[in-house]
């Protein structure tokens, strides 16, 4: 820099100092607009809206039928999310846990290799922003869209519920819903992170869409077989009472690796105050237990490990995607 022969532009003259970090906002704003105007968002919104409406109408009808006999049920409102009523074959929370991976994958699978395919990556990276701001902006945009969609879904359900049931949610129920919403966003973000990681590592969008979908299907359909087999290796079922119990506990522990299980357990406990455990309860443990509803703090106490683990897994996915993108050659 002291070479008198070389043109030197004084760094201090520039009003925008090195280290200025605002580029991720520009990237996020653009990505957000892209998502909101994209066909896939509109299709998703439509599917989500129709399915939710169907589920919630069925559920609210079912609840209305049993409501006269259900004097003691305090968390009636939350039943909207957890009750299964014909002809819709699943409660809303199952529907969300089923759809969430798709949502996350959709907003992440082509985030980096899409730029590569269009030839925009070298141009983008030659702008005066840090490389991490590119991927950060994409994460933020994806999570924002997901959060908005899920919040809209919950409000939609709540609105129909209030209208059809005439029951207003209690503060406790609203808080439970809110915590569940955060958990759901984290869960979707896990899949977005996974899809982004794959999109950094592969060059074709088709591949990076199929890999996370494959992982999801394997976990969802064959998860219990796999976890059962692994549990059998760790703690074989030898036929004795203790053996059976140990095997079941091992299976329970191993299955916590799957984000699907983590989210489903978390949802069940958070939205159903009557659920008092995620794992196994022996007969001795439930013997003479007083059946009562748990308060929010107690429910949170039960699912705390699941929630923390899910957040950690999501953070790990993002970190892996991030590191992998930072280390990558521009012309990979």
């Amino acid at each position, binding site marked *: *820099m002291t*070479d008198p*022969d*070389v*043109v*030197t*532009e004084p*760094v201090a003259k*520039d009003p*925008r100092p*090195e*280290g*200025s970090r*605002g*580029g991720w906002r*520009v*990237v996020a704003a*653009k990505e957000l607009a*892209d998502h909101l*105007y*994209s066909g896939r968002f509109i299709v998703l919104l439509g599917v989500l809206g129709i399915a939710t409406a169907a589920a919630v109408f069925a559920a609210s009808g079912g609840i209305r039928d049993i409501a006269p006999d259900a004097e003691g049920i305090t968390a009636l409102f939350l039943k909207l999310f957890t009750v299964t009523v014909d002809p819709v074959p699943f409660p809303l929370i199952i529907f969300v846990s089923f759809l969430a991976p798709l949502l996350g994958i959709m907003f992440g699978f082509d985030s980096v290799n899409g730029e590569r395919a*269009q*030839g*925009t990556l*070298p*141009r*983008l*990276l*030659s*702008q*005066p*922003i*840090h490389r991490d701001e590119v991927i950060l902006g994409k994460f933020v945009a994806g999570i924002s869209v997901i959060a908005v969609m899920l919040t809209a879904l919950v409000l939609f359900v709540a609105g129909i519920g209030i209208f059809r049931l005439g029951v207003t949610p209690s503060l406790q129920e609203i808080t439970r819903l809110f915590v569940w919403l955060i958990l759901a966003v984290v869960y979707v973000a896990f899949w977005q992170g996974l899809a982004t990681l794959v999109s950094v590592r592969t060059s074709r969008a088709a591949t990076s869409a199929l890999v996370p979908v494959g992982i999801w299907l394997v976990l969802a359909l064959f998860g219990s077989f796999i976890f059962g087999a692994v549990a059998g290796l760790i703690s074989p079922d030898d036929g004795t009472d203790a053996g059976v119990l140990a095997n079941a506990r091992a299976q329970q522990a191993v299955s916590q690796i799957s984000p699907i299980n983590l989210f489903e357990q978390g949802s069940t406990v958070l939205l159903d105050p009557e659920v008092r455990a995620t794992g196994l309860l022996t007969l001795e443990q439930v013997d003479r237990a007083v059946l009562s509803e748990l308060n929010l703090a107690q429910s949170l106490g039960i699912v705390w490990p699941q929630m923390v683990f899910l957040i950690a897994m999501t953070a790990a996915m993002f970190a892996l995607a991030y590191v992998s993108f930072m280390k990558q*050659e*521009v*012309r990979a």
Partner: protein
Amino acid sequence: MPSAIRTVGLTKRYDEVAVVKGLDLDIEAGEVFGLLGPNGAGKTTTILMLLGLTEPTAGSMKVLGLDPRRHPLEVKRRVGYLPDAVGFYDDLTGRQNLKFTARLNQIEDPQTRVDELLAQVGLEYAADQPAGEYSRGMKQRLGLADALVKEPSILILDEPTTAIDPEGVAEILDLIRELAVQEGVTVLLSSHLLNQVQAVCDRVAIFVGGEVIAQGRPHDLAAEQVGHARVEFRFDDDAEVALRRLEEIETVDDVIHGRVPGSWIATLDIGTLPATVNRLVSIGSQLTGVRRVDEDLDAIYRRYFEGEEVSA
């Protein structure tokens, strides 16, 4: 003239394969510098290193006095880059694409800047069309505007004329020349097309296999070839007859096909050219044109790419 870009012993290896080998470049502020070489010569890798987008394995470099490794943002703020096969967000319009770049560069009034640039590259008419509908040439022009958004001191253009029709090429080259002269922008242009580099560049480095094999003003480089000259003769005669007559002349060493049918390029001692022409006329050749061809870099280029396709 002070240097805008200077590299010393710049080297890049991928898995032990050296792509750029000890490159020494010295590009003066305000000049148009051509990096001429075939595909795979290491031109793009060199450019990426100058922009701080790829880490060199060895060597040092200064871009506007800054080391791109330590001050990548400062360098990127001042260097406009048109990548090889530039791409845009297909769903956004040309104007939206440029505005995005303007925002990333924290340009104060993106609207005005973008409008100016669109006018400068002659794309106003298509500004509100999705970039996905642009032709290759339009994308290239948009790319040039995109590289100019930040009002750069240095413009790095990687193969700016590939896949464009000849008319478009001339326009782009004019535009580049204009920028260099009017705005005083230093231009580093990479290309595998000799005549284009020659048309716009003040100085040229011929870059093959990761090494610079010749560097200087196009004219000076050609002058290294004193003695033997290559001359193109055009005839009105039958091509075979003309060839036979040329080969009969003692002063002519070697004859190859010219650029158009019926023309032949002969190697001869430059001092014997008048005599050779006289001789051709006296034996009855219908000579319609005589032109030295190694006043351009053709000779040098061909010498190094013998057997390779030279699309001049």
